[in-house]
C-alpha cells in the first residue's frame, strides 16, 4: 500500500484491522472505548450526508466524524 489506509477509506460492509492512530488525543479516546491496535473493525454505515460514520468494533457500534476516521490507520 502506497498511502496508509484509514477507516475513512472503508466502504459499508468492509473490514479493517486497526494498526495505529495519527492523533494522540483521538487515540486516547478510542483506546478507552476498546479500539485497540490489532482489533478488527467493520464499517457499518454512514449518516445521510456522509458524516459521521458508524463502525462496529468488539460488538459495539461507535460513531465518529470523517476527519476523525482519517486519523485511524489500518493494516
Amino acid at each position, binding site marked *: 500500500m502506497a498511502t496508509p489506509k484509514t477507516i475513512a477509506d472503508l466502504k459499508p460492509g468492509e473490514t479493517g484491522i486497526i494498526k495505529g492512530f495519527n492523533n*494522540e*488525543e483521538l487515540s486516547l479516546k478510542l483506546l478507552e*472505548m*476498546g479500539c485497540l491496535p490489532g482489533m478488527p473493525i467493520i464499517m457499518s454505515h454512514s449518516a*445521510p450526508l456522509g458524516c*459521521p460514520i458508524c463502525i462496529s468494533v*468488539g460488538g459495539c*457500534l*461507535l460513531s465518529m466524524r470523517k476527519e*476523525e476516521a482519517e486519523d485511524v490507520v489500518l493494516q
Partner: protein
Amino acid sequence: MGNPNVGKSSLFNQLTGLTQKIGNFPGVTVEKKEGSFVFQNHKISVTDLPGTYSLYPKSPDEQVVADFLSYNSTEKPDLILCVLDAANLKRNLLLFTQLSDLGYPMVIALNMQDVAEKAGIAIQVGLLQSRLKCPVIPINARNGEGLNEIKAAVTLMEPEARPSFFIADEFNPSLASELRSRFAVQNEYAALLLAHQYLNSYSLNEKDRQEIAQVLNKYQFQGKSLQAAETIRRYSLIHELLMGVVSVTPPQRPGWSVQLDKVLTHRIFGYLSFLVILLVMFQAIFSWATLPMDLIDSGFTYANSWLKSVLPDNDLTSLLTDGIISGLGGIIIFIPQIALLFAFITILEESGYMARVMFIMDKIMRRFGLNGRSVVPLVSGVACAVPALMSTRVIDNKRDRLITIMVTPLMSCSARLPVFAVLIGLIVPQGRLWGVLSYQGLALMATYVIGILSAIGAAYIFSKFIKQKQKSFFIMELPIYQVPRWKNVLQAMYSRSLVFVTEAGKVILAISILLWALASYGPSEGMKLAETKVSQQVEKGELTAEAADGALQSAKLEASYAGILGKSIEPAIKPLGYDWKIGIALITSFAAREVFVGTISTIYNIGSDSDNTDTVKEKLRKEINPETDRPMYTPAVGASLIVFYIFAMQCMSTIATTFRETKSWKWTAIQFGYMTAMAYFGAFLVFRLLGGI
C-alpha cells in the same frame, strides 16, 4: 460509577427511589445525583456520578469526577459500586481496574446479563469474582433483581486487599514515590493520576501545581504516551483475566436492531421519521399539558378569589393573593410541560434513538457552530426553554454547549402562543390561501420559522466570535435499541420538575412579588386622583357600579409605579409603535409572557372577561391612538409586537436557568442583551417597513 448506558441510573433509581435529588458539583456545571437507602438500620448515602469510560477526563467538567475521588477530596466515598455491562465486560473493566488501583473498597454490580445471553455471551461469575478479588453481584436493574444483595454487600462490606492491576512504578518509579512523599496520596497510582491531571484539578492551589510541575519536569513526564501505554497494558491484563470467564459465540447485534438502524438513519426516512416523531411529541405535549395547566390555572384563580373573599381587604391580602399566590401559580403552571417534555426526552434516550438523532444531525449542526447533540435542547425549546436549557448537559464540548444555551430561547416557546394568538387574530385577516391553508395558521407558522431561522443565524454569528478552545470529538456509542425503562422516565419527570420549582422558582417568585408591588403601589396623590376620578364618573352616571371596579383597577394601574415606568419608557418604545399602555404590559410580561394578555385586559378595563380573547381583540380594535386619531393597533403595530415577542428575552425563568447552566453573569447578560437588541431593532424595522409612523 460505570460506563455510559450500562443501567447505572436505573440501579440508582432502584436504590434511592424518591430520596434522590439533583444538584451540582460546586462551581461547575456537572450534575450530581444524591440519594440514600436504609438496610438493617444502616443509612447509606449514594452519589451517582456521570458515566465515563475511564478516569482520564475528556473535559474540565469531567475533571470533577476525578477530583471527587482524589486524595484531598472532601467527599471521598467509603465504597465504590461499579456497574458493569455483561455484554461489554472487556471495555467496562478498564474503569474498574483504575478505580481498584486507587485503593477504594469496591463492589461490582453485573448488569444486563439477559442482553449478553441474547448476544451469545456467557459469564462465569464465580470465576470472575475470584480473579478480580471483588464481590460480583449479578443484577437486573430493570426489574430489581439482585437489589437486596447489592444493599447487603454495600452495607456489610469487609474490605479485602486487592492486587494492583497496573504497576504505576514500572514506567516511572521515582516519579510516583516522590509525589507520594510530598502529597498525601494514598498509593502510587493515585500519585500518577495526580501527575496527569494537576493542571485541571480544582482541588489544587497554585503552589501545589508549581511543585508538581517541577517534579514532572525532573522526571521528564510524558503524559499522553504514558496514558496510551497504560490503557493498552490494562487491556491486555483484562484480556488475560477474562480467559475462561467469558465464553462467546461470535457477538452480533440483534437482527432487528440493525434493520431499524437502516431505516432510522436513512437518507430520507431518517429525517422523515425524526420529523414525524417531533410532531407527535409536540402534539402530545401541547394537548396533554393543556388539561393540567387549565386545572392549575383555575385552581389558583379559585384559591385567590376565595382568599380575597374571606380575608380583609388590605395590602397584606393583596400581597398574598396577587403577589405570592399568583407568583407560585406562575411557577407551578410550567410543571406539566416540563414533566412531559422530559418524559419524552428520557424515552428517546432510553430507547437509544436519541443517539441516532444526534448522528444524523451532526453535520448540519456543525455548519452553524453547533453540535449534533444540540438537537435535543433546540427542539425542546419549542415547548419551553427552561427544560431545554437544562438538557444542554448532554453536550460535552464547552463552546458548543455555550452557543446552544445562548440561542435556544429564540425557538418560540409555548408561552408566547397566547400573545401570538391575540395579535395574529387582530391583524391577520381570516380566510384561506387556496381555500385550504388559513392565513392566520400560516402567520403562526411564520413566527415559528422566524424563530428557528434566527436561532440558527445567531448560532452562526456566535461561532465566528467564540473560538474552540478544545477540539471537539464526536466519538459516541450507539447503544442497542431497547424498550425504555418506565421507572426511569417517571424518575426523570419528578426530579427535573423538582429542580425547576426549587431553583427557577425562587427567582420567579421574587420578581413576581416585585412586579406586584410596582403595579399596586404608586405615589399616593396619583392613586387618590385615580380613585376620585372613577367615583366621579360613577356619580355622573357615566359608569355602572360593576364597570366601576374594572375602571378603578385600570386607573390605579396607570397611576402605579408600573404605570409610571411604562410612561417613562414610552419615548423609547414609540419608534416601535407602542404607547405606554403596551409599555406596562411589556414590563409585566417579564414575569411570564402570558401575563401580557392579562395586563392588557386590565389596562383596557376588560374586567372579568379577560380570558375571552375575542373580547380582548374587540377592545384593542376599538382603541384609538390619540396622536393620529386612527386605530392604535394597525397591522404595523401588531406585526411589530409579534416580532418583538419572537426575539425578546423576557422570561425570568429562562434567565434564571441560563445562569444556573452557565454559572456566569457575563453570558447571562450577553444573552439578555443581544436578544433585547434583536427584539428592539427587529420590531423597529418591521414597524417602519409596514408603513408605521
